């Protein structure tokens, strides 16, 4: 008869799934990678031919995330691969969508004037579209992983996008700059959040001296 272990009570599959997702995002590596990609998409809102390469950049970022994440976690909290389609591709895809949606809406609203992406026709609320997409993606990540900082990023997406919609900038900032600046600020927040998360993770999760155990 098996003696009771000192383990916690049996967890549901949902708990294991949430903890697996938490394992993928808690080290902060995903924030850094998504932050860099957000910067790229921000530049692409000014130099729109870069958007054509955005999918390539997305895959490059997803590939770059894996070794960074493994290096941080494998000797501290172990190594685990989530099924295909889990972090970081959904977040990276959301950033790309956040860039494409307002650009697409602006294209539709300006083409009628006969000058595609004419600055005079740019709606100032374009950043709000981007903010809504990012807010949803961060909230979804928070729900899946239970990691609180993604709720903060979700709220920040909304707040920053509304700011860049409503604030009365001077003539030096044109309507397309509002969208670009929104992405730049979000990139900065992501990089800062990722840096803080990574520093805390490294400080609180010591490296194990050797791989624990062996299958006999």
């Amino acid at each position, binding site marked *: 008869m098996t003696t009771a272990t000192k383990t916690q009570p049996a967890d549901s599959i949902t708990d*294991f799934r949430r903890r697996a997702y938490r394992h993928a995002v808690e080290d902060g590596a995903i924030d850094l990678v998504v932050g860099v990609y957000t910067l790229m998409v921000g530049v692409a809102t000014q130099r729109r031919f870069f958007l054509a390469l955005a999918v390539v950049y997305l895959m490059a970022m997803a590939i770059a995330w894996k070794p960074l994440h493994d290096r941080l976690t494998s000797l501290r*909290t*172990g*190594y685990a*691969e989530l099924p295909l389609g889990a972090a970081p591709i959904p977040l990276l895809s959301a950033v790309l969508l956040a860039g494409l949606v307002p650009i697409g809406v602006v294209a539709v609203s300006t083409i009628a004037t006969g000058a595609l992406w004419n600055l005079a026709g740019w709606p100032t609320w374009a950043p709000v579209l981007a903010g809504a997409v990012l807010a949803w993606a961060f909230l979804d990540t928070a729900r899946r992983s239970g990691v609180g900082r993604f709720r903060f990023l979700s709220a920040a997406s909304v707040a920053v996008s509304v700011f860049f919609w409503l604030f009365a900038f001077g003539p030096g900032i044109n309507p397309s700059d509002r969208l670009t600046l929104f992405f730049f600020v979000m990139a900065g927040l992501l990089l800062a959040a990722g840096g803080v998360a990574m520093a805390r993770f490294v400080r609180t999760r010591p490296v194990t001296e*050797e791989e624990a155990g062996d*299958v006999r």
Partner: protein
Amino acid sequence: MSADPVPGSDPQTIAGVERLVHEPGRLAVLACLAVVSRADFLYVMRETGLSQGNLSSHLSKLEAAGYVAVEKTFVGKVPRTVLQLTEAGREALRTYRNRLVDALSRLPE
């Protein structure tokens, strides 16, 4: 005073859940591996809360039954034991769940 037997109840239905899967430690290991593609020994140990020796023992049994595939690799100079739930393991977990749900539904209130 003994309770009247519940029509359709059958002790064999409860006894029929696979004991290999039914053990709480092994069930935790299978559940942990069911939600990831692959994971290493350290990850599973942390997630299940099992001790090193306990987990090794459970993994030996699960590997012998063909429910978990064990691969020993190196990452640089650091050994890594990678674990993966096999299709047979997924099926065993699925069957266990269905039988347990069925058995529990037949228990008297």
